[in-house]
């Protein structure tokens, strides 16, 4: 590598409200280098990129520590526009394109070329008349630089998705002095052939001397085109290496590897799972949930076990339960203790004694303006007609019973509050989660599905929630399904863990499977498969 690297971030640390999300991380990318940035969700990839782009979320929370150099010059990037001025561009996972505009207009958006008029002398350049020919020329040039051949006056609306991505790239390339392009999960929305083409284009761009940061969860893509890579885990730098010097198994293991403390003692053998008695069965199950698509999934959860769904965000694990509960349109079969759910009917799962604690606590899980008491009894009241009292034709709420139950639950789960009348909106995250849990438990379910049980709550509360789940399982034989992006917590309490990738179960692993097995499954590969390939060579 000659001269200074295009980007050099040294000793980057960042804290959000006392919570350290990046610890002394380095990221160095040279000219023409394709550099992969890999790590699990929450490893710190997006925070690092937010720092690079000077996003307001960084500066409004106290900035960061460390130094950023671009082409050898120390810089302080305070907002995305400054990042743009420094020659840093971003290709978004979801396209930043205006469908009603032509390709040329989209490529030149915000950077239109104009010829001054009489009025622009008085009112400034905003009154310039657009020079559409020059814009078209520029657009053509940018498109041809990435090897695209398409008329620039076509509207973006009708283009196939792959083309849109290319227009997006062309727009970044067109920016004068572009030195560094960040691709954020660019292949996530593309079909296989389109993805291949994209990788070719990335190489083409790199050959022109532009540095590329490639964020992806697909390790095969990393191996295919990246020159080097940085692995982050829990906000720490694990490895900076050339791709040639590492195998995919090593990468996967480094991404995941950490000590796991079991909350449930498995003993030497797996707990006896009643394999005859299937609590929840999914056959060719699909859910149309935006951003969390489930595509023809098959899985079985046995009665009395703690089953985990893991995998990266956006791969579909969250979609499973939202489909079962009827919140998003679903197809295929979902069976609860052998009975088929009527998925089109809202709440059929509830009637089959499946209770659900949503991953989106504030958005789905709680009535923030209502009291703890009202929240806890709501589901049981509406679904099972509990806590009600008949007055004439009206079914009125039985405040006495509701209050008593709420107080019991507050004690049971140790919800820290001023009393059952406190509004849930003013509770801390952990206590809110306990209220959600209390509401689900009040339904007295046979199967309890908890999505992201510990997201956004502090460590103490985390442990308490998990321990309580285990207790419910052990004491009452309740079948528990946990859906979580945090592999550690799944491995700490689950009997079996299904890793979801691209809307399907990639692999079902025991909690003590190797880190590499988990890491590979997350990027859609199996350890056995990869090792087989290695042997073949």
């Amino acid at each position, binding site marked *: 590598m000659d001269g200074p690297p295009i980007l050099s971030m040294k000793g980057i640390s960042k804290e959000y409200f006392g919570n350290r999300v990046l610890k002394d991380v380095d990221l160095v990318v040279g000219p023409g280098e394709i550099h992969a940035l890999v790590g699990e969700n929450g490893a710190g990839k997006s925070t690092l990129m937010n720092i690079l782009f000077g996003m307001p979320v960084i500066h409004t929370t106290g900035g960061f520590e460390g130094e950023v150099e671009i082409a050898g010059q120390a810089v302080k990037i305070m907002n995305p526009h400054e990042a743009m001025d420094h020659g840093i561009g971003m290709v978004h996972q979801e396209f930043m394109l205006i469908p009603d505009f032509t390709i040329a207009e989209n490529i030149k958006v915000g950077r239109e070329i104009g010829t001054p008029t009489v009025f622009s002398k008085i009112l400034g350049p905003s009154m310039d008349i657009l020079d559409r020919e020059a814009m078209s020329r520029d657009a053509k040039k940018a498109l041809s630089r990435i090897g695209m051949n398409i008329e620039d006056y076509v509207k973006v609306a009708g283009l196939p998705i792959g083309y849109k991505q290319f227009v997006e790239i062309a727009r970044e390339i067109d920016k004068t002095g572009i030195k560094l392009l960040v691709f954020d999960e660019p292949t996530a929305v593309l079909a296989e052939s389109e993805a291949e083409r994209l990788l070719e284009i990335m190489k083409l761009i790199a050959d022109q001397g532009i540095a590329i940061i490639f964020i992806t969860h697909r390790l095969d893509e990393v191996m295919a085109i990246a020159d080097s890579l940085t692995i982050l885990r829990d906000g720490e730098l694990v490895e900076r290496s050339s791709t040639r010097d590492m195998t995919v198994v090593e990468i996967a293991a480094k991404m995941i590897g950490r000590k796991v403390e079991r909350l449930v003692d498995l003993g030497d053998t797996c707990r006896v799972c009643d394999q005859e008695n299937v609590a929840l069965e999914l056959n060719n199950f699909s859910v149309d949930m935006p951003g969390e698509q489930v595509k023809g999934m098959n899985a079985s959860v046995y009665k009395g076990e703690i089953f985990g769904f893991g995998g990266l965000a956006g791969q579909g694990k969250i979609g499973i339960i939202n489909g079962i*509960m*009827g*919140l998003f349109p679903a197809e295929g079969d979902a069976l609860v203790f052998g009975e088929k759910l009527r998925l089109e009917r*809202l*709440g*059929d799962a*509830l*009637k089959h004694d499946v209770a*659900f604690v*949503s991953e*989106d606590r504030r*958005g*789905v*899980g*709680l*009535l*923030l*303006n*209502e009291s703890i008491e*009202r929240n806890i009894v*709501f*589901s049981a*009241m*509406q*679904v099972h*007609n509990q806590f*009600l009292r008949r007055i004439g034709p*009206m*079914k*009125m*709420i039985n405040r006495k019973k509701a209050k008593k139950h709420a107080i019991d639950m507050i004690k049971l789960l140790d919800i820290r509050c001023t009393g059952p009348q406190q509004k849930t909106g003013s509770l801390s995250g952990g206590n809110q989660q306990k209220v959600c849990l209390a509401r689900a438990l009040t339904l007295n379910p046979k199967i309890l599905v908890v999505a992201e049980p510990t997201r956004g709550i502090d460590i103490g509360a985390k442990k308490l929630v998990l321990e309580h789940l285990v207790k419910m399982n052990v004491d009452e034989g309740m079948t528990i399904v946990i859906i979580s992006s945090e592999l550690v917590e799944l491995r700490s309490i689950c009997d079996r863990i299904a890793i979801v990738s691209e809307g399907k179960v990639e692999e079902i692993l025991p909690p003590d499977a190797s880190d590499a097995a988990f890491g590979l499954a997350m990027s859609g590969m199996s350890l056995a498969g990869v090792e087989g390939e290695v042997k073949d060579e």
Partner: protein
Amino acid sequence: MSNAKQTIQRIGWPRLIIALFFILLIVVSPFMGLKLSDVFSDVLRRWSMFGILILAMVPGVQSGIGLNFGVSLGIVAGLIGSTTAIELSFQHGSPRPWTDLGFALLIAIPIAALLGLVYGMLLNRVKGSEMTVSTYVGFSVIALSNIVWLLLPYKSGVLIWPIAGEGMRNTINLEESFGGLLSNPAVVEKMPTALRWLAFEVGGVVVPFGMILFFLFMCLAVWLFLRSKKGIAMSAAGENELFTRSNAIDVNQMRILGTVLSTVLGAIGIIMYAQVFGFLQLYNAPLMMGFQCVAAVLIGGATTRRASVTNVIVGALLFQGILTTSLPVIKRLMPSGSTLSEVVRIIISNGIILYALSKTKGGNQIEK
């Protein structure tokens, strides 16, 4: 210090200013040569008169359709009920006030329920823009009702223009019908002794006791409903659609329920309004009535997403109180300022709606 600040923030500046202004007006009025008893009589009358119309906002807001500017639908239903009841009495041959009131309600409520149902279905299709749509649906319905008033084949002399006129009168006198039944001592005096409590005077203050009782009864009914299983489900639908759906409740049905209730209350509200007022006002008179109701409930402390019975009672008192007390005070201050009260009404009601809108939209967008 911070405690006081918090209290103010909870009450909200506009509400506080209006309340203080209201108190100031009451304190000032004796010095302006006004009798306090008259002031209180007026306030009580207007409070009970508007109360139910304002109460109509509560089910709408709670079910999630927002501030129901389209309460005009209920108003039109109420007016159809009232005029039809009067026409029936005319064909019967003699005035019968209580029957008129009964029939007016009996006819208006199913019409309102039906209109509310259709309207609720429309609002379910325009989620997110309910307020803009409902405002213009309200306007359109009033414009359409103008044609109805021209075409209804009624014959009663009370209803139609005397000679060669077309259609119904602008203002219909209810003296012969249900005007003042629950509120006017002069009307109540002619009733049997057992009913004399409906309206009376205490120390110069006219108390429309029957009307107040009816208003509070309706408030109680709504309050109880909001504590029933259905009511709780409806309120949840308005607060958090996804939460409600995840508990197997059909949100759209709940919104329709809220719209129907709001429309029916609007119908009852306008009948009671006319009862106290003594006149039915047709044509464009109710055009802006929805705005007044919205403003009143907002002054009472409601937001575009939450409203309670307390908000209604307080809001009706403050909003109507300030309008009734300001008029005589202004008249004393400047004799030619007879319309100033109207101007004040326009400024306050639209100002408070704007304030509420700016609080819900934009400001909270990031938080959500």
